[in-house]
């Protein structure tokens, strides 16, 4: 049986990589590797996972320098020379080992007014949204975010400007901007425009390159820029 050489981050902001040797298996995922280490080799290793099938967004880590969802990342695809280096997500405070503090990441969703704000009451009829309408198509392209933080961890602008809302929060805002039922459009554009919002994006597209759900936050952010410009010119902002 062949062996995989794995270096895993131990500690928090200060720490070091610890080396392990893990048996290779067919169709082995990076999460399988981390789980083997924790269950067999080092029970004190802290990491986070839940669904194991790419739905919950909790197992993202930095694998050989790239942020990935580990439950759907096969070792075959990412190991270099039979070796893996596994670290916590970048741009987030490390609590311990591979576990990051996601509070700031999700607080930014709230700051970007990521909540739906409807204008109808239970007495009103259902809203009828045409599935083929351009606005709904934009929503469909961006709505399947699982909140894994891979885009946020891959974003250079987040690293340069800690106040920047980041690709995931702006992508969420974009889905609501294009939701014809939402009634807080201008308020949301005010929240997402400016130096800490969509206008800070440099269109590097690392978020779109690495999103495991194949969403393009860059496209949504560009849409927010256009919407904010139009609102500014109309004097709405």
């Amino acid at each position, binding site marked *: 049986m062949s062996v995989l050489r794995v270096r895993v981050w131990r500690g928090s902001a200060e720490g070091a990589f610890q080396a392990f040797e893990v048996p290779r298996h067919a169709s082995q995922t990076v999460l399988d590797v981390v789980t083997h280490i924790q269950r067999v080799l080092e029970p004190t290793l802290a990491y986070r996972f839940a669904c194991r099938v790419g739905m919950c967004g909790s197992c993202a880590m930095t694998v050989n320098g790239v942020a990935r969802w580990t439950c759907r990342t096969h070792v075959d695809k990412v190991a270099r020379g039979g070796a893996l280096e596994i670290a916590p997500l970048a741009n987030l405070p490390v609590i311990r080992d591979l576990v990051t503090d996601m509070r700031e990441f999700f607080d930014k969703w709230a700051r970007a007014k990521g909540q739906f704000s409807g204008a109808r009451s239970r007495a009103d009829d259902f809203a009828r949204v045409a599935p083929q309408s351009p606005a709904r198509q934009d929503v469909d392209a961006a709505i399947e975010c699982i909140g894994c933080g891979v885009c946020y961890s891959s974003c250079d602008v987040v690293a340069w400007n800690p106040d920047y809302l980041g690709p995931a929060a702006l992508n969420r805002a974009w889905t609501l901007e294009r939701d014809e039922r939402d009634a807080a459009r201008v308020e949301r554009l005010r929240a997402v425009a*400016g*130096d800490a*919002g969509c206008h800070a994006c440099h269109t590097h597209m690392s978020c779109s390159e690495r999103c495991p759900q194949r969403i393009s936050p860059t496209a949504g952010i560009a849409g927010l820029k256009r919407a904010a*410009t139009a609102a*500014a*010119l109309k004097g709405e*902002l």
Partner: protein
Amino acid sequence: MSVRGEALLWAAQRASAALLALCVAVHLATMIYAVHAGLGAAEILHRTRGNALWLGFYALFLLAVAVHVPIGLRAVLGEWLGWRGRSRDAALAAFALALAWLGARAILGVFL
């Protein structure tokens, strides 16, 4: 700066970039033509002096530069040096005026 101001700055930078794409292309093509045609300083001045078309073109070019460069530097100063706030914007407004002044002198130098 207000959110509206930030949004308008972004629009101004995009619009000035579009203008620059055109102006830089015309400027480079003119320079290459002038060099290949073997024109000297006197001959170039003969063509530019009193020519309202060239004056208008370079005034537009200068306007695009004076708008575009300081807005770009604003992001660089914020992200690389952490310099944000009113002092940065005041310094860049002064820089924009300096660019416009120096450029205007150069344009008038070949027009008058």
